[in-house]
């Protein structure tokens, strides 16, 4: 489009440049022209600050739906949706106790599209939690945490924690009864190390529980100080943390060699006509950072055959998952409104007072021991998950679903075992009660140490160790443990969500709850 500038008159030259400036701006932005050929597309991806988190070419294995099911992308998409809708809500939300409640009412009733945006925010947060959990399960079951991706698995654990933190802090903001009592319980869980320090008798000198609660609430009650703290965490600190971790997470995907794929991936892919090699053979020796630094990059030994340009193939997939997530969030938002109960009332507790659903598994454990259910077991789980890549140093069947000794059979067996033990323990505790009901004088430390939560953790750990011995493989043990953990999480969450009513009593259905 750009023609050579006429030389004859400065004025005409000026006019010509003025008319041409839109195209010049475009050329300045794109540098290498329109992305129409593989080469210019590659340049486009490479030269764009956002896109260059992708590699220029993507392996066809990575684009198979069954490789990742797009779960990480869905989580990111849900985060972006929550980010956009959250920023919009900030225009109207007032982080001050009663004004907060009123502003949510305003958002609900008079802010144009306010109700819809709030629903989208709430549903995208839920979708994000689900996607993050499933993404973690996918990464585990395809053994994608293995070398060289161990550190990225740890970053992922961090992202899980931050995601849950975002949900938890967002829960208080409407300042209704639901929010108030869920946060009261949450803040007291933070204080629950006192259960141990009190029992040992050192709370006076060493009180991490009290400190945590105070830092969280900024006061000794859930009040305006707590609200502004949760607000700052929810709209500033945690999103910043999440974005930073996310950037590292993406960066490491690229630097750790892209999606995990089994060693025989190239053989298993059907030949494709339009894929042509860009190099004649795989590099036998590439150095990092243009050979200034020593050490082989993960690209060594992996040929470019079976790769396709990221643009447009990968971007179609990414946009597709993004829009699918948008669609799901929109549909859920149209079906169901985000809840808003009565204005928070510090003297009348909600009954039952329930946290967001993904915490109800923990709340079920908390109903036996606050410290173990709320702090001890979550920490054991996070540490245990974090240790997996360092205990499982095997290499076989990386990238394959349920790869490892025993495979899907072992997973199925572990699932049966995991379900049976969690259901058994819960049924027993619900039917017969727990230690305090039989021995009212029992010391608290005993209950803290021996309760359905710790018992379950011990059973799962013992089972996994037995599997390690039986299969002679850490991967087998990890498969067993992770599957058991997943089953326990699901069952406890379902019990906490559906089967617990007023006074945390067991009910077969919420329809059986006594009406006040």
């Amino acid at each position: 489009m750009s023609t050579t500038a006429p030389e004859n008159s400065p004025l005409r030259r000026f006019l010509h440049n003025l008319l041409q400036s839109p195209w010049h701006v475009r050329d300045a932005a794109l540098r290498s022209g329109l992305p129409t050929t593989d080469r210019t597309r590659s340049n486009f991806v490479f030269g764009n600050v956002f896109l260059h988190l992708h590699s220029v070419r993507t392996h066809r294995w990575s684009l198979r739906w069954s490789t990742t099911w797009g779960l990480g992308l869905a989580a990111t998409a849900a985060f972006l949706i929550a980010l956009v809708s959250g920023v919009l809500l900030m225009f109207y939300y007032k982080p001050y106790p009663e004004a907060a409640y009123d502003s949510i009412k305003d958002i609900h009733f008079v802010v144009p599209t306010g109700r819809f945006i709030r629903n989208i925010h709430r549903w995208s947060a839920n979708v994000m939690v689900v996607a993050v959990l499933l993404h973690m399960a996918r990464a585990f079951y395809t053994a994608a945490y293995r070398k060289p991706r161990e550190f990225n698995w740890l970053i992922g654990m961090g992202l899980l924690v931050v995601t849950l933190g975002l949900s938890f802090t967002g829960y208080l903001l409407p300042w209704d009864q639901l929010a108030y009592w869920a946060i009261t319980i949450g803040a007291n869980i933070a204080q629950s190390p006192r259960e141990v320090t009190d029992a040992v008798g050192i709370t006076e000198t060493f009180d991490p529980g009290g400190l945590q609660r105070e830092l969280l609430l900024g006061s000794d009650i859930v009040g305006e100080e707590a609200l502004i703290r949760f607000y700052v965490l929810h709209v500033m600190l945690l999103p910043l943390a999440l974005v930073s971790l996310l950037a590292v997470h993406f960066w490491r995907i690229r630097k750790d060699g892209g999606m995990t794929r089994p060693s025989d991936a190239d053989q298993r892919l059907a030949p494709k006509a339009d894929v042509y090699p860009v190099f004649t053979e795989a590099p036998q020796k590439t150095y990092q950072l243009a050979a200034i630094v020593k050490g082989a990059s993960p690209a060594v030994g992996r040929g470019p055959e079976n790769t396709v340009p990221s643009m447009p193939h990968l971007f179609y997939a990414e946009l597709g998952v993004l829009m699918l997530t948008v669609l799901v969030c929109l549909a859920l938002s149209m079906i169901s409104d985000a809840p808003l109960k009565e204005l928070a009332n510090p003297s009348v507790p909600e009954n039952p007072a329930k946290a967001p659903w993904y915490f109800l598994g923990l709340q079920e454990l908390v109903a036996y021991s606050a410290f173990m259910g709320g702090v001890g077991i979550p920490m054991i789980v996070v540490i245990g998950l974090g240790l997996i890549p360092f205990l499982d140093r095997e290499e076989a069947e990386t990238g394959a679903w349920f790869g490892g000794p025993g495979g899907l059979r072992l997973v199925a067996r572990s699932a049966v075992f995991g379900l049976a033990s969690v259901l058994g323990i819960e049924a027993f505790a619900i039917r017969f009660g727990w230690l305090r009901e039989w021995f009212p004088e029992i010391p608290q430390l005993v209950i803290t140490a021996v309760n359905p939560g710790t018992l379950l953790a011990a059973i799962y750990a013992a089972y996994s160790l037995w599997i390690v011995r039986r299969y002679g493989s850490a991967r087998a043990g990890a498969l067993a443990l992770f599957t058991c953990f997943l089953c326990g999480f699901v069952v406890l969450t379902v019990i906490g969500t559906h089967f617990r009513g007023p006074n945390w009593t067991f009910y077969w259905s919420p329809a059986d709850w006594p009406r006040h």
Partner: protein
Amino acid sequence: MNKNKHLLLWSSLGALCLLVGAAVQENFLKEWRGIQASIQTDAGPADVRLRQIVAPKLGVTDRCVTCHVGMAPGEQEGSGHPLAAAHGPVGHDPAEFGCTVCHGGQGRATEKADAHGDVRFWPAPMIPTRYAYAGCGSCHTHIRVPGQSELERGRSLLERYDCLACHRVDGRGGTLRPGGVGGMEGPDLSQAGARGFDTRWHEKHLQFAGQPDKAGWQDAFTDIDTAERDSIEAFLTSRVGAPRLVDAKARFHSLGCRGCHKIGGIGGDDGPDLSRVGQRDPGQLDFTHVRGEHTLANWLSEHTRDPARVVSGSKMPKFGLSDDDVDLLTYYMLSLRRSDLPEAYWPKDRIQASRFGQREFSTDGATLFGTFCAACHGDAGQGRRFPGSPPMPAVGNADFLAAARDGFLESTIWLGRPGRRMPAFGEDAGGLRREEVQAIIAHLRREAGVKEPDRLHPLPRWASGDPDRGRSLYDRHCAGCHGARGEGTDAPALNHPLLQATASDDYFVETIRRGRRGTPMEGFGQPSTIHPVLALGDIESIVAYLRTWEKRQ
């Protein structure tokens, strides 16, 4: 790779459809848009937009006028929809006070169910229309009402003197000369209590009646005596534009409810404080045993009708109230909703009550008795008996009043009977003042025609007798009702420390001797078919025995 293109295509199309749907819902399908679109005003069709009344000091953001368009500030009455009607004439301009201050409901909402508050999680639904004036109670917590009988007397005097021929009161009367032709029709008196009226009205009327040119007046208006004038004025003072609320309050204060329930710190404490009962959240109430709709009004009326059915284990007796009673009591209870408004918004009577201690009820003995005593002791002091509770003493009984001295009665009302059902009404506990307690006693004496008895003996404690003999007599004649230890199973508790401390021997001796005619308590001084006549010495022995309980307390 077409799979991904399909994914993108169909997801995007789906999202687009949903967004279009949301946009249609947002911009065309809102309930209030339909209402506003159908309204025509003189200036043409009404603007379709959200309307609201904001009064920050009252904490009001009311969007009720988004649908009730005719009531919106600066809006004229329209036609084409019932909601286009303007608000009826009221003392408080809705544009200044908003809607929810009086009517309740959820002002921020813009959809009918939410706005009227008949939804879960909204604690303050609208007050039903038939109890609409209960909303006045949010601020007018101290509407002054005369006693029930005084009110009735005023009303009937107004009828008897045919005042309604010229005046209009609460929508009745004033029909003789429609349109005020001939200057005969007097002003509407429905709000005379709020706007005030000429205190020299009687003289003026007489003056008019004496003028020759006022032909009709000579027959129509005659002299009215002072007592009747007072009654008429008391009635007029209570005409504040909420006639049924005033009736409800007067009825409430004649049925003795405040004997057990405190309102604003005044009343007994045998039952829950009712100061804010009209603000209770229906979501927190138990409707398991309530017939009919799940509203606060229905709960209150069902509970008033039969307390123990609605709240199992309730100590409140079933009074057998009429439907009208129940309706009026419900009305008054719904009006007990004092909001914490800034003092600048307080009405005069509330300020007078809080600053200068003025009463919202009439402080004559009859009204006080009706307000604080009638529920348990009967409207004429005849005593009452409720299942599951010892009988309530007949305090209007002539024999009782002939045995009890005023000081004893006063301390009994003042201190109550802790541990029994009689609450303490003294200023610190129940909020009654000395002169009010004395007015109650004077009322009892006036009604029964019994003066304060003279002392039999100069000393309060004089009975000398043999407690052992007293004990055997007591066991034979008294223990059946008063209990083996005087604990008062089916009659007053005689071992109560406060009774022992305040009752003189005179009182005991006289009560045993006279008995209380009309109650199961027989007099032991007179011949009877069921027990022997006891000599004074025997009675003294019984008293001596009663006194042994005091020492062991």
